[in-house]
């Protein structure tokens, strides 16, 4: 019954967007209730569909022709339904929270309209059944992100951050589009020479048709296509080297950071790779034996990003930036999971990666909302000016601690140690351990332990930076005179709900894997699984993630709470590593100065200007073309004398001229 209303999942927020935009000013709290009601509706439909399709492994597929062999359609398979439920749920909570957080902002209607449109676009990404619609929605998501990062557009830093985010993700989007074009060309070739048959109810560029074409396609082409897709994912999910925009994106309201730059939009990149996963798996292995080329690159980019971003998270002083780097790092984990587990476990990798994606969405949204609550209370982003807030903000502090424990992956792996007790732990424990184990197994099979190294070291750093954040914010003595208070119920309510999920979501692990694994079976795609020898990790391997987590907590505790180790010597002595990290590996400078100023402005733009000014305009007199056009316009305008006799003469003259021309062309008879 709910399945028939699948389109409403997207349409409700769209309607809310239109209504809020035009009527928001007149409604309660800038029209916040409309998007909340609409997204609640989408959530209910999503959950309803889940309960309809879950028992019998069903799918929802609706599609109708659009133009030129393309279609618009809905595909709700296990992969999509778990994302749908997560996005509508988190978005709903954040919208409720925003009623409190944005209460003092005069531009509320614009805010709620834009977040509503954003939610609609993201939902449309999720349930697209073809790559073209996916791309269009993906672009719309990017546009909304641009609008929301620059929400306080009168702030120059916000405007600059919005621009940066837009431009950097655009690099990825162009690659993605190029991938789609290449895919289309390849499929068209297959159709033209008759190897691929598109049935009457199917359409080219539909995921199902794309997967059918995989075995027919040339392997090298497939590698190019998947790598171009992955380029899009790198841009959207802030992977190295296009990660720079995400921390800057924190210039928007904190709710936007939580919604877009933690829980939903940035996961679109991971979702893209998961969606087209059969294509990644099918790429040939030329670089490393047994590892599909594209997955190898996904592994390394993801793993390196996980570590690289974590190092920068260690030294940031802006509470939201720490979380932003943490997001980049965790997205790296998701990519790593797709790459490593994809090589050794096949379709199960999608389950592992998506599970981390969703548990991350819960605890990262929670972290951001807690940060928002702190910022709302003390009025600064700088953790050096906070401290001792625990007694004043008990709910925020406790929920944030839960989220931090989840991020660091705290838990007790009884089962793995052979004890007859089930594992107990936070959501992050279940989801991250699986990734690290997957990396270990990858190492065993391919004798390449580097990704495993990335994962473990990053886990240690993650634990250090998140507890540094927590200790500096909530413990010790207040470091500045600020009046702080606990946030209102409309804000703490969502915190507590998310905290419950951050604690308990992990227990659904087995069921989740089992369900999402089936995704590609339902799509009639066979994913070859490399059967390695049975993998029995040693106790140390199983315990290691937890050990590094506790170790990180301990280090942070000693440095930032007990102050036993004096950090000031390390950080202030002009230590080059500290400076390197604090300056974010000079990436913004490199990006801005070398690529932005030197390359783009000095070389490309200047030479363009040189050509424009000196050659095109300089050869002839100043601005000859534009001036001529304008002057020509003026002159011709004067032909329009307004005297009707002249008009008649022109008409007759035209007739005569046409006659002469035709006469000249044909000659005479």
């Amino acid at each position: 019954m709910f399945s028939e209303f699948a389109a409403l999942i997207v349409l409700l927020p769209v309607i809310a967007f239109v209504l809020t935009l035009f009527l928001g000013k007149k409604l309660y709290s800038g029209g916040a209730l409309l998007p909340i009601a609409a997204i609640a509706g989408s959530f209910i439909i999503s959950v309803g569909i889940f309960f309809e399709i879950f028992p019998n492994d069903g799918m929802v597929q609706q599609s109708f022709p659009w133009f030129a062999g393309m279609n618009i359609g809905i595909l709700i398979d296990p992969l999509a339904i778990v994302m749908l439920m997560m996005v509508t749920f988190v978005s709903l909570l954040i919208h409720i929270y925003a009623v409190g957080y944005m209460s003092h902002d005069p531009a509320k209607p614009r805010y709620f309209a834009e977040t509503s449109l954003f939610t609609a676009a993201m939902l449309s990404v999720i349930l697209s059944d073809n790559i073209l619609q996916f791309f269009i929605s993906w672009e719309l998501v990017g546009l909304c992100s641009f609008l929301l990062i620059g929400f306080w557009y009168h702030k120059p830093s916000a405007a600059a951050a919005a621009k940066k985010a837009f431009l950097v993700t655009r690099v990825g989007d162009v690659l993605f589009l190029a991938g789609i074009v290449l895919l289309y060309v390849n499929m068209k070739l297959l159709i033209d020479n008759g190897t691929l048959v598109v049935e009457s109810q199917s359409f080219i560029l539909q995921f199902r048709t794309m997967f059918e074409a995989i075995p027919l396609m040339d392997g090298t082409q497939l590698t190019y296509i998947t790598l171009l897709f992955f380029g899009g994912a790198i841009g959207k999910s802030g992977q190295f080297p296009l990660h720079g925009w995400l921390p800057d994106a924190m210039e928007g309201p904190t709710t936007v950071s939580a919604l877009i730059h933690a829980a939903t939009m940035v996961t679109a990149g991971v979702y893209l790779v998961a969606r087209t996963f059969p294509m990644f798996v099918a790429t040939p292995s030329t670089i490393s034996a047994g590892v599909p080329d594209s997955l190898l690159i996904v592994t390394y980019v993801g793993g390196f990003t996980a570590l690289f971003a974590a190092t920068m998270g260690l030294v940031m002083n802006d509470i939201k930036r720490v979380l932003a780097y943490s997001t980049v790092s965790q997205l790296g984990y998701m990519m790593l999971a797709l790459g490593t587990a994809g090589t050794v476990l096949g379709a199960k990798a999608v389950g592992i990666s998506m599970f981390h994606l969703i548990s991350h969405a819960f605890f990262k949204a929670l972290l951001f909302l807690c940060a928002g609550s702190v910022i709302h209370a003390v009025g600064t982003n700088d953790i050096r000016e906070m401290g001792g807030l625990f007694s004043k903000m008990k709910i925020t502090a406790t929920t944030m601690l839960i989220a931090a424990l989840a991020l660091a992956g705290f838990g007790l792996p009884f089962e793995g140690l052979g004890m007859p007790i089930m594992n107990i732990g936070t959501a992050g424990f279940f989801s991250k351990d699986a990734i690290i184990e997957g990396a270990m197994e990858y190492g065993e099979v391919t004798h390449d332990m580097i990704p495993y190294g990335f994962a473990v070291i990053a886990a240690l750093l993650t634990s250090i930076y998140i507890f540094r954040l927590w200790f500096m914010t909530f413990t010790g003595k207040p470091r500045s005179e600020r009046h702080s208070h606990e946030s209102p119920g409309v804000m703490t309510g969502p915190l507590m709900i998310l905290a419950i999920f951050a604690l308990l979501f992990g227990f659904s692990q087995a069921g989740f894997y089992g369900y999402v694994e089936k995704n590609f079976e339902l799509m009639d795609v066979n994913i070859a699984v490399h059967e390695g020898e049975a993998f029995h990790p040693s106790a140390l391997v199983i315990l290691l993630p937890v050990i590094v987590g506790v170790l990180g907590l301990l280090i942070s505790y000693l440095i930032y709470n007990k102050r036993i180790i004096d950090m000031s010597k390390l950080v202030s002595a002009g230590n080059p590593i500290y400076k390197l990290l604090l300056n974010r590996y000079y990436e913004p400078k490199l990006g801005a100065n070398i690529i932005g100023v030197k390359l783009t402005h000095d070389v490309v733009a200047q030479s363009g200007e040189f050509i424009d000014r000196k050659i095109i305009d300089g050869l002839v007199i100043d601005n000859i073309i534009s001036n001529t056009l304008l002057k020509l316009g003026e002159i011709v305008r004067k032909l329009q004398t307004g005297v009707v006799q002249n008009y008649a003469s022109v008409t007759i003259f035209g007739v005569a001229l046409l006659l002469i021309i035709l006469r000249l062309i044909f000659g005479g008879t």
Partner: protein
Amino acid sequence: MNFTLFAPEILLTVLAFVIILMGLLVNDKSKNMLGYLSAAGLLASIVYLVGNGMTGKTSYFYDSLVVDPLSQVFKLIFIIVSIIAVIASIEYFKNNRNQDEYYALLLLSTVGMMVVASANDLISLFVGFELASMSTYVLAGFEKKNPASLEAALKYFIIGSLSSALMLFGMSIVYGMTGSTNIPAIIEFFKVTHLSAESSLGILAMVFLVAGFGFKMAIVPFHMWAPDTYEGSPSVVSALLAAGSKKMGFVAAFRVLILALVAIKVDIQYTFAILAILTMSYGNIVAISQRSIKRMLAYSSIAQAGYISLAFVVMTQMSIAGGVLLALGHALMKAGAFIAVAVVGYMVLNDNKNAKNSDDIGNFAGLGKRAPITAFSLFIFFLALAGIPPSAGFIGKFVLFYSITVEALTPATSWLLIIVIIAILNSALSIYYYARVIRYMYVLPPNGETIREPAPYVVAMLIAVIGTIGIGLYPEPFVQMAINAAHVLGV
């Protein structure tokens, strides 16, 4: 004989006479309802039209009128434009004591255009042409106390009569050569006998016909009347002229010229290419320096006529479909844009009863704040006119340019690539003057209060906006319709 297929025309004709009769009977105040009556009649006729289906071919009255996909598409265009104009007129001519005549003439001109769309005989073509022209001459001068309106009407009338005379002369030559006025019969004659149109007489006839149709299409050099007339006429009439009556020229040209050119295989591509290029470049270049928005729209519609004329250059099925699509899109965008200008006029007159040049670009400053719906609609129309997706303007241009590019891939006709490049450069140039108005509307500060936009204008503009965007988002059925129409011409 079964006249169901002509139900729309019959309905509108009867309605026109009923309105005249009612105008005699009711008092001046009640005349406001005549607009609603006309709108209802047009709505009913569109229902009939669509109900009759867009495919199939039937001929009537000794083969002098036909109903086929081509006629249906253009009738659809004419009725939609009339609906938009009539709805806007409800506000524009509110409390005008001559409303009855206005609506009757508007309906009759619509019928005239529809007859041209169906014409399969030179005589019925001419009769339809004249019916539409005569009615619109009067409509253009409908603001009797406004000298600009009278001047517009007079110029339109004089040049229109000249063109009609030329066209009629051309037709008589054709009759003299072939002994028939039936279009298929004429084509057949040219096919069988080898008396080709390359003869002096043939060229003369063709040029005269081009001049006659070109007047309505407003292609260079038969365009001179258009800017003056569009500027001076009431905005709602300008909408009808630019969006509807102009397309009448195109459907006539499609019917007569394309068939003739295909049949006799005369190679006058170059001539049409030059005309099309001249027309679009001239329109765009002159539009740049206009301060009157109505004049700017007039020149932009000359430029659009240039794009549509490209269909005559290659004459493939795809390119004619593109021309038909662009005609459909242009009808919606241009009608909507003129209505938006009417709202601005209303706004300016609200501020100051004696204001002149209400369509000066200065009055558009801050329109985004003063009349948000109008500004937004105009924004959409301008983007669509500039050919930015997803809009009807984009689809039309895309199909048209694409079809020419395909032809240009054949080595023999590779010169067509130059035409495409010039057309695309022209499109880019047009963004300049559209963007200028958009800047006025959204960047510059408003110079007055926010107004309440009258409901009829809003409805009229929204119809056009929905059509413009709708075709852009879901082009498939419209492309199919245009291809069916092109198929009729047997190219």
